[in-house]
């Protein structure tokens, strides 16, 4: 049963559009799946390899702009962004890795954070290349109906899920965890830490870039403030994984469900709408203090809390 749970979930999700959900519910579902993709990507780099990134918006934005610029500059469909972004995002990730992976722990975190900001400012100022603050608008949408968008992002999510699991269960995954637990010890055991950290970064970046490509095609409009956003992309990415569960397969999915629903609920309450960052911040603080490994990671703790299982004697 446990072995097949991924297939069962994927199968059930694939059947969902047949039920005839309205387009708002489809939109929410698509957002949830998109955020779980970004969460899985972040989890690979930060949860398993221990390199906490505060700048995943950089990769998301580069992916989004790859698709957008293929459309606006070359006049071909934004969907070509999927194959193109692999190279573009990997190249950018290599550059960022070369600079940032010299730093450790919190310093790496802040360096990636500033990378995200640099990308935003450059995208805003290079008006000739990116269109600056005006952004890029995809004028003709591929489908009116959301069903195909749903299947595409579901396919991306399924592929990312299996990729992450494959990587983590391979030798590479053990290297990653070894680096997370003790970088010096890993190095002394003959693991080329820089190399494996770079691999983790590139894998994570490419998956995030896919989400960005999808975003451009789905939303039809991007501008630097949206796709390179610090709070609304980078920090939410961290929250998705922190809430769901760091270094767990299902954590990002659970986190994405909670965060997207929470954002929608808060937005729909009139007075509370402006306070959504406060509530997110408080949620983050509460999670870190009481459930530091997230809902999936500390599930046994939660069970105990609600009296479903007696505390160990």
């Amino acid at each position: 049963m446990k072995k097949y749970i991924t297939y069962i979930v994927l199968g059930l999700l694939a059947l969902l559009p047949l039920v005839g959900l309205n387009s708002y519910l489809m939109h929410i579902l698509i957002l949830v799946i998109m955020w779980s993709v970004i969460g899985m990507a972040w989890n690979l780099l930060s949860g398993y390899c221990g390199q906490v990134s505060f700048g995943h918006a950089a990769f998301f934005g580069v992916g989004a702009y790859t698709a957008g610029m293929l459309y606006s500059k070359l006049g071909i469909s934004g969907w070509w962004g999927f194959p193109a972004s692999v190279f573009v995002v990997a190249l950018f990730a290599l550059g960022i890795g070369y600079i940032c992976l010299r730093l450790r722990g919190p310093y790496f975190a802040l360096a990636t954070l500033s990378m995200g900001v640099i990308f935003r400012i450059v995208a805003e100022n290079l008006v000739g290349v990116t269109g600056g603050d005006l952004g890029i608008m995809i004028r003709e949408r591929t489908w009116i109906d959301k069903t195909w968008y749903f299947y595409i992002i579901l396919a991306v999510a399924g592929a990312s899920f299996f990729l992450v699991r494959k990587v983590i269960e391979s030798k590479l995954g053990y290297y990653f965890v070894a680096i997370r637990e003790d970088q010096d010890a890993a190095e002394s055991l003959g693991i080329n830490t820089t190399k494996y950290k770079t691999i983790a970064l590139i894998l994570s970046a490419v998956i995030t870039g896919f989400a960005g490509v999808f975003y451009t095609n789905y939303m039809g409009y991007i501008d630097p403030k949206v796709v390179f956003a610090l709070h609304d992309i980078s920090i939410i990415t961290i929250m998705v994984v922190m809430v769901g569960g760091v270094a767990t397969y299902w954590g990002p999915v659970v986190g994405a469900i909670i965060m997207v629903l929470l954002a929608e609920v808060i937005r729909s309450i009139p007075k509370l709408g402006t306070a959504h960052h406060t509530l997110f911040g408080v949620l983050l603080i509460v999670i870190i203090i009481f459930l530091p490994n997230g809902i999936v990671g500390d599930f046994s703790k939660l069970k105990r809390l609600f009296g479903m299982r007696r505390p160990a004697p």
Partner: protein
Amino acid sequence: MSSVNLEVLLQTLISGVLLGGLYALIALGMTIIMGVMKIINLAHGELMMVGMYIAFVLFSWLHIDPYLSVFIAAPALFVLGVGLQKFLINPVMKVDAILPENQVILTVGIGMVLANLATIIFQSDYLQTPVSYATKAWYLTDLWKGAPLELSLSFPWSVSFTIAVLITACLWFFLAKTDTGKSIRATAQDLDAALLMGVNVERMRVITFGLGSALVGAAGCLFIPIYYIYPDIGGQFTLISFVITILGGLGSTVGAILGGLILGLFESLTATYIGMGWAPVGRFMIFVAVLIFIPGGVASLLRSRKFGK
């Protein structure tokens, strides 16, 4: 170089130094927190924003001069910092989690809450304190009639700079001469050794966080007469102070001061010669260049000089 060009260059350098002095004060707060607690305080800019709003409220309600509100904002921020450290950050330091960066992520949460609360209370409008001396300036030709060049020195900028230098001097005195200051430095150097020598490390952490917050709060008050405020202003100052700490060398106070000056000069030069919008990019170019070429920052250069002799 014609005299106009020279004038522009000198004027740019002057404003760069003035800006750098204020940057140094912001970065000092982050540096001492980083040195003692080994964490990066990502809510640093937001604490500065709180200081700025305190100065703004005092000015618009009670008509207290922003420079005098340093004496109110700094203690208030000290209390806020102590509270944050005691009730939020300290408990997390003891929690066992997979990611050791939990405290950093926690400060992000704190920053988000502070910025959003400011948005709710003050709306996201750009606010300013219309002080009477905002446009006052000293001109070189007023002092020296036959001067070949015309240079000006803005009054609020130079007052802010002077106060920043004074505060820095006080901080140096505190760290170098008082017992508490020495204990803080001991904790920063070696936590276990300090503990063995009978330093109350827990208390030093609390004091340091309060002190760092008070410094940045004071910097906020100094920025008020020359800058505008809006709730999301914090993020950019967090980044600035981080860039300065990297530039100066992690945890080095002298490095932070030098780094602040260098960054101020560099930013002012980019703004004059390349364009306003690119000034932030220049900031980060420095950051990247430092990481690649002098990973230890300015402090490491100073140190190698010393050992070389």
